[in-house]
């Protein structure tokens, strides 16, 4: 759609917008400063209520803004709220200003909606936590940061949210910091994210200065959208500038959204409490990268080379992570790798230019992944923090609500219609196929594995006999209402959200795509073009859909055979290829170990070398200069003492010697004196005579 037109239409302001992120910030500040006292006075309910009220209020504000947005014509569907000027130096101008367009609306609905549910869930989950105030404060702070990220109207404000979610992620992963592994996981997350941020900063700098060189210095998204075309012919280092910018920004996205090779922090992040994994590492923070690319769709459309990279990385990640998920025994690790894999799909989506499809999958994934994580949390909570699936089993009898919601979410993720995951995943696969069948193939294989390992999880956890010890089994019961209620809501979402994006091929009008159309510049054209070709490829589309459903069912079937009927023993696969395939997958391809050895070890080694150099060589020079100076001064002193002073003393010695010589004449003997007198007189007389 024409952004220029949107820009020239009078900008609609809504001063409600600022409260959407500010309310959670307020909650965070209060809980940080006086949370301890609130907890003492009102128990954990006090802090939880305060903390949950904030995102709930924000959610209502979001809904209100959403309706306000709907009332506007599609070309002018943006609301703005400029809070205060932030940084204005030279041609660089960034304000603390929020915008609310269809894409932001979608993101904020997800963030506040699912966020609120998770806040409520946390009250039930963290029932034995003495530092609940800190937990809820961090959760609220996270909401603030995430909302700033998606609502910021310029790169700098988005980056504030970007790093802010990193900070909260660090704090929440390492929440139980007395266990050093948790703290280390938190650090890992932050540092790996920083690698991504490094790319982000460079991309942003290049973008700003390129626009400045073209005469349109701006950092707001609408400004960049309006003037992006002026970058088409610029190059840097021999490459088109837009390609380099988008590549750098993609590095940032890969860090935040856990794509190869920067995904390694996400599985470790499971060390944090499960609500954190649900909120941050499934529904919201990790989607920031996808959001950014969707937000900058016009830029990525100008850089087909980067798009190929994005899609390829996404596809490889999708498959790679899925293979690792096959062999994990920790329930959360399976879900973690599943998240990485699903994120890969989203990147395939935005990488082939199907931005709406990517965002759609983001939304559906948020629902069913959050449901899965919260469900696993329910299981873990009931099993007294047991996370190994080998010690679970048969839980459906004890935890029916958890079981049913979990099952619904699993069916959704496996991509079985009419649940949400099918529509979103399939749209991506369809668009991927149109771009490059290889991408489709990788995604297809991943989908198969997804169905398999998710149902493996379900069968190991909820079916069969409970393998836990007697004491745990006795205490197994369904979780409290605070935990099950959000599960139900999310499960309903996993079923219904898909209907927002029913493709035309199946009779729907893809409301989702229509809603996001104003944001996706130039995609109206692609959509129209697609509609033209649509008729021809309908068979292909149906065929692919059928293939997806088929392979998903096959995966489910295999899992059922192996883990429920126990007809096929997993060991067969484990021993395949001499056991190496299994070992590789089980050990996550030793990527972490390689990373530690190369990067951590390398950097530490470099650091020690530099420190040694500083201490021994540089300081050595300084101390050496002191030694040299002392030596010089000693030489100087010796010179002064021996030579200069020596001359003085020599003079005295000579005179002394001379005197010693002369004094011999003073014999004291009178006779001698007289002799001398006589001699001299005689001599003088003789001399005179001559």
């Amino acid at each position, binding site marked *: 759609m024409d952004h220029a037109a949107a820009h020239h239409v009078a900008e609609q302001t809504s001063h409600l917008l600022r409260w959407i992120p500010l309310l959670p910030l307020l909650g965070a500040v209060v809980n940080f400063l006086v949370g301890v006292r609130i907890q003492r006075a009102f128990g954990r309910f006090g802090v939880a209520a305060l903390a949950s009220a904030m995102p709930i209020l924000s959610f209502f504000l979001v809904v209100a803004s959403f309706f306000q947005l709907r009332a506007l014509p599609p070309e002018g569907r943006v609301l703005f709220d400029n809070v205060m000027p932030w940084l204005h130096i030279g041609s660089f101008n960034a304000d603390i200003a929020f915008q609310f367009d269809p894409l932001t609306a979608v993101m904020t609905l997800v963030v506040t909606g699912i966020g609120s549910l998770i806040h409520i869930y946390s009250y039930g989950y963290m029932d034995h936590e003495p530092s609940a105030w800190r937990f809820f404060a961090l959760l609220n702070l996270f909401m603030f940061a995430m909302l700033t990220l998606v609502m910021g109207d310029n790169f700098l404000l988005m980056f504030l949210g970007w790093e802010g979610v990193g900070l909260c992620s660090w704090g929440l992963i390492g929440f139980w910091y007395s266990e050093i592994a948790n703290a280390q996981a938190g650090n890992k997350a932050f540092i790996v994210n920083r690698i991504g941020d490094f790319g982000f900063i460079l991309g942003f700098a290049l973008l700003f200065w390129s626009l400045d060189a073209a005469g349109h210095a701006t950092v707001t998204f609408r400004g960049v959208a309006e003037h992006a075309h002026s970058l088409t012919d610029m190059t840097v280092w021999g490459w088109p500038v837009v390609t380099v910018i988008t590549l750098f920004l993609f590095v940032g996205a890969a860090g935040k959204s856990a794509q190869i090779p920067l995904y390694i922090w996400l599985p470790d992040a499971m060390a944090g409490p499960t609500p954190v994994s649900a909120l941050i590492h499934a529904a919201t923070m990790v989607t920031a990268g996808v959001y950014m690319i969707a937000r900058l769709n016009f830029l990525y459309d100008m850089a087909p080379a980067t798009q190929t990279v994005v899609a390829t990385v996404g596809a490889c990640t999708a498959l790679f992570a899925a293979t690792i998920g096959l062999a994990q025994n920790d329930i959360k690790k399976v879900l973690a790798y599943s998240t990485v894999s699903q994120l890969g799909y989203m990147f395939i989506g935005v990488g082939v230019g199907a931005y709406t499809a990517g965002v759609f999958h983001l939304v559906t994934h948020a629902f069913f992944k959050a449901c899965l994580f919260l469900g696993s949390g329910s299981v873990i909570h009931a099993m007294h923090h047991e996370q190994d699936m080998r010690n679970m089993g048969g839980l459906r009898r004890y935890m029916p609500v958890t079981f049913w919601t979990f099952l619904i979410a699993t069916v959704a993720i496996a991509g079985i219609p009419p649940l949400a995951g099918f529509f979103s995943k399939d749209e991506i696969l369809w668009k991927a196929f149109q771009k490059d069948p290889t991408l489709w193939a990788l995604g297809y294989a991943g989908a198969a594995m997804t169905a398999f390992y998710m149902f493996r999880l379900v069968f190991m956890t909820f079916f069969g006999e409970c393998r836990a010890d007697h004491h745990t089994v006795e205490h197994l019961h369904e979780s409290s209402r605070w935990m099950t209620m959000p599960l139900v809501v999310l499960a309903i979402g996993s079923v219904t959200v898909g209907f927002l994006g029913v493709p035309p091929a199946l009779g729907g009008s893809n409301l989702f795509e229509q809603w996001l159309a104003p944001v996706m510049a130039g995609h109206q054209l692609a959509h129209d073009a697609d509609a033209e070709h649509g008729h021809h490829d309908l068979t292909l589309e149906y065929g692919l859909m059928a293939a997806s459903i088929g392979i998903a069912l096959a995966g489910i079937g295999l899992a059922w055979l192996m883990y429920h009927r126990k007809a096929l023993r997993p060991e067969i696969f484990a021993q395949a290829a001499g056991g190496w395939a299994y070992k590789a997958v089980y050990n996550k391809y030793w990527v972490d170990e390689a990373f530690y050895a190369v990067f951590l070890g390398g950097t530490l080694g470099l650091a020690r070398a530099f420190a040694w150099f500083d201490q021994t060589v540089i300081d050595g020079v300084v101390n050496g200069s002191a030694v040299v100076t002392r030596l010089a001064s000693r030489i100087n002193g010796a010179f002064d003492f021996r030579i200069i002073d020596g001359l003085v003393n020599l003079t005295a010695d000579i005179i002394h010697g001379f005197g010693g010589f002369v004094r*011999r004449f*003073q014999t*004291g*003997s*009178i006779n001698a004196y007289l002799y001398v007198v006589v001699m001299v007189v005689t001599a003088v007389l003789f001399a005179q005579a001559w």
Partner: protein
Amino acid sequence: MGVGLVHYLAVGLVLFCLGLFCVLTRRNAIGVLMGVELILNAANVNFIAFSRFGVAGYDGQVFSIFVIMLAAAEAAIALAIVLGIYRRQRSIDVESMRLLQG
């Protein structure tokens, strides 16, 4: 041949030499002083001789009276010094008066 100037001068010379010899070689301080007296008197003889045979005038003789007076004074002082030295070191051997040795 009468007694001329030369004869007087010769006497004076002999006296002078004898006196010089005494001064240079005597160990006794009094002896040295005696030598000094001889030298002085030799000079006196010289003066008188020249006064008698030389240029007109009585300058020589006047000079002699001065010299005799000086000799007396000097002998008195010298003998006083010798007396003082004797009191100090109980000997008037010139060889032993080496206090001014440098």
